[in-house]
């Protein structure tokens, strides 16, 4: 039985299509009222997992509990879920009102109850003026609101979102992102949200599950995932521009551990190791915004390098240069604009860095 306070519990779930294993003995417990984001590149199995939870795909092994009830083989409608799709999936021949009420009519719910629920959902989502329109007459943002409304009227405990904002343009996306966050605060429902967009994941989630190859790589609060990624994949997937990686060796001398790559030597006295490391090949990673430009010699590590490309982004500036022979990116303030070819000094504190072993890519 699932523990108390757990809304959705996935136990040893596996899914195979023939010989291809899509999800591998996956476990995930989602707390009551929690906002979980499944994040990963396409093909990582995140949407598949969501469809399994919804009951739209038959699983191969394992069990799924929702609200303590084993729903592994229940029909989607009996699971107490509502779902919002990437393409909105509104029934084109029905008006917005009919779209919202379709599931309720199928379930044979009384007319006045249907009307009450639609009124409430329409009010929350501010779509009252649209109720008599057909989906074709709505904008993308309005369509997605209706799609959310369809999940809302079902009066369910768990909301499933399958990349709901991917079809919208950037401006609408950020607006609706905030609305979804407010909606969650208001309804206090459990929400499971699939996306490949790390900004959505970072901003919306109570916890993020980063997935790859049908396996959850890391399940943690957004800040933890960002600052202490458990492996090189998670480190590289989050953050834009991506984390800088230097390949080299982990060595120990009389002043302590240090990282050596070609002509670069980084002292690691401030780095918090997971456990006592062993010398050998390793990868050193540091995020572009954790590197300072021309800020003196107060850093545990400093170096000089020639600037190759400067990209002013408006809010900040990206500086591309070579450290040794490896590409290196810095994110600095917008006021700071070095010229191409100019030699600059950089510095950082290895405390903010991440170290991974080179073979498995796990955090050291």
């Amino acid at each position, binding site marked *: 039985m699932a523990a108390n306070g757990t809304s959705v519990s996935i136990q040893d779930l596996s899914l195979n299509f023939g010989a291809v294993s899509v999800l591998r003995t996956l476990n995930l417990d989602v707390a009551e009222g929690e906002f979980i984001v499944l994040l990963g590149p396409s093909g990582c199995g995140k949407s598949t997992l969501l*469809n399994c939870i919804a009951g739209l795909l038959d699983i191969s092994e394992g069990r799924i509990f929702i609200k303590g009830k084993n729903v592994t083989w229940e029909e989607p*409608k009996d699971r107490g879920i*509502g779902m919002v*799709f990437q*393409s909105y999936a509104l029934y084109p*021949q029905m008006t917005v009102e009919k779209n919202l009420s*379709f*599931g309720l009519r*199928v379930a044979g719910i009384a007319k006045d109850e249907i009307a009450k629920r639609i009124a409430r959902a329409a009010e929350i989502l501010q779509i009252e003026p649209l109720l008599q329109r057909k989906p074709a007459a709505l904008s993308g943002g309005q369509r997605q609101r209706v799609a959310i409304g*369809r999940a809302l009227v079902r009066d369910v405990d768990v909301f499933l979102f399958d990349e709901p904002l991917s079809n919208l343009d950037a401006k609408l996306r950020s607006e609706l992102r905030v609305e979804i966050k407010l909606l969650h605060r208001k309804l206090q429902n459990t929400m499971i949200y699939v996306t490949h967009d790390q900004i959505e994941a970072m901003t919306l989630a109570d916890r993020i599950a980063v997935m790859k190859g049908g396996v959850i790589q890391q399940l943690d609060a957004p800040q933890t995932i960002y600052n202490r990624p458990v492996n090189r994949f998670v480190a590289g997937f989050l953050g834009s521009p991506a984390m800088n990686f230097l390949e080299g060796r982990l060595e120990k001398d009389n002043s302590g551990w240090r990282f050596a790559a070609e002509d670069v030597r980084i002292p690691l006295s401030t780095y918090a190791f997971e456990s006592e490391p062993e010398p050998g090949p390793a990868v050193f990673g540091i995020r572009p915004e954790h590197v300072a430009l021309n800020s003196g010699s107060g850093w545990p590590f400093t170096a000089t390098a020639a600037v190759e490309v400067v990209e002013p982004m408006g809010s900040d500036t990206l500086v591309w240069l070579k450290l040794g022979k490896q590409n290196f990116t810095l994110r600095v303030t917008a006021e700071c604009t070095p010229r191409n070819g100019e030699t600059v000094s950089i510095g950082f504190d290895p405390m903010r860095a991440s170290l991974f072993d080179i073979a498995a890519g796990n955090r050291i």
Partner: protein
Amino acid sequence: MFSRRNIFLYGTLVVVALYYLLPLYVMVVTSLKGMPEIRLGNIFSPPLEITFEPWVKAWSQACTGLNCDGLSRGFWNSVRITVPSVILSIAIASVNGYALANWRFKGADTFFVILIVGAFIPYQVMIYPIVIILREIGLYGSLSGLVIVHSIFGMPILTLLFRNYFTSMPEELFRAARVDGAGFWGIYLRIMLPMSLPIFVVAIILQVTGIWNDFLFGVVYTRPDTYPMTVQLNNIVNSVQGVKEYNVNMAATILTGLVPLIVYFISGKLFVRGIAAGAVKG
């Protein structure tokens, strides 16, 4: 406008178009002439004296075998064959295509492949076993038997048509309907059907023309009094007894071709879509 390229281009097209229209023209003018004029004149000249008698004769008096009640009998037979065949074959194939597209189950694809391969098998190979089956269930020679035969042979192409159409519809729509609690028939009737009217029109065009124009199944699976129009036309035109009445023959030919021609001219571009799909049938 009158560049050499255009003169060549339009000239060629017009000449070819005239060639294609010529038989239709000859059919019409011949059917409006009296026999004496046909014997004297040439088939391309317009009628000197227009007469509708050949049409009347073709419709209500022309003889096939012992029946001398004209093509009207074949016309109504064809109607009684075509209407139920079209409805039955499309009903079966659309539900089946929907099941194949959205409710895949183990083994379904195997049967589907056999069905599609079957579409390429010459009918001659399957004619006789079907005679036996129909005889066993007592439908050999009846219109119902022919309706079943048309439904069977319409199935591969129609199922393919509907399967491809339903597959091209967004999968998420189907999933949303399942989350909303609609089942197999509920989704088919309330979501899929209202969205797929164009493909139904294409299927209807395909089937109406195909079944109306059929000759082989009609001649094999019906008796003289239940012959469809095409079989009757062939018997009228190619009967060896009596004097050949070319004007009546041509009137009968136009009458037989009228239904598919009307379907063709009304449906326009949808017809092209239909035959492009139906062409696979060969």
